[in-house]
């Protein structure tokens, strides 16, 4: 009984929060609504017994991702309300709703399946985090390492793209200007070296 209430409570909360993020014209409201939504999702994880995942959700998603978005918002000074010229808005909503209805129509049917044995059975004796650790570092070791590489790639991309070096584009400058620029920069380093 408990569980049903919790489910419906959180479900409605999440849907409302996300609709706000999507519908509002205020950037700030969108951000905060989404953060709240994230928190309720982590609540779901706890309900479903995926404690480690819930924690990760809070730390990574709400913590890191939302923080970056906040910085982004400040940087793009979109604090004032975002005016957007909508082209045929109703079509978009109708299309989204129609897609939802279609998928729900299929998903409603109960899944009839015989093979129920789980490859990595959850046994409640062992703590969720420990079990996840076990599975993560045996079966899913390769994706884990690759995820690390991916994060490294993302980091490099972030740094390189946002870096100051991108301001003067060599692609657009003619050859002479580049040569000129290099000559001046070499002299600067010399001066620094000299001081």
């Amino acid at each position, binding site marked *: 009984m408990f569980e049903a209430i919790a489910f419906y409570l959180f479900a409605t909360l999440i849907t409302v929060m996300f609709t706000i993020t999507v519908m509002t014209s205020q950037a700030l409201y969108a951000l905060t609504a989404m953060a709240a939504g994230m928190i309720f999702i982590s609540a779901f994880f706890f309900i479903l017994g995926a404690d480690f*995942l819930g924690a990760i959700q809070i730390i990574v*998603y709400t913590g890191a991702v939302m923080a970056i978005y906040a910085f982004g918002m400040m940087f793009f000074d979109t604090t004032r309300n975002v005016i957007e010229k909508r082209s045929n808005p109703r079509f978009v909503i109708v299309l989204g709703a129609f897609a*939802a209805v279609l998928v729900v129509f299929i998903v409603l049917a109960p899944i009839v399946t015989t093979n129920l044995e789980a490859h990595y059975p959850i046994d409640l004796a062992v703590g969720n985090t420990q079990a996840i650790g076990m*599975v993560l570092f045996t079966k899913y070791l390769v994706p884990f390492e690759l995820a690390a590489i*991916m994060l490294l790639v993302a980091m490099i991309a972030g740094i390189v793209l*946002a870096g100051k070096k991108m301001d003067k584009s060599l692609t657009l400058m003619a050859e002479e200007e580049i040569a000129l620029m290099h000559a001046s920069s070499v002299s600067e380093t010399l001066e620094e070296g000299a001081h």
Partner: protein
Amino acid sequence: MEITLTHYLVLSTLLFAIGLIGVMRRKNLLMLFFSTEILLNAVNIGMAAISHYRGDYTGQMFAFFIIAIAASEVAVGLGLLIVWYKRTGKIDLDQMTSMRG
């Protein structure tokens, strides 16, 4: 009454649909990235629910990696946005149509 896997799948589909509407509706790129976040979160819920009802950790693993992917995506996305913002001063979608036809 008893919450079954279908409930969660329906919820996940709904959230996915909201995310889709967001993606299609938004003209501001930042807001658009929010919607992509919603998409991935919707899938996370579904994954967690299936792993719970199936009693199998793979779902949680998938959710875990999706979070990792979402994080790196945000990084690259914002990086691109910053460069675009420095270059044009606006992050509105409709300015970005120099290439067409």
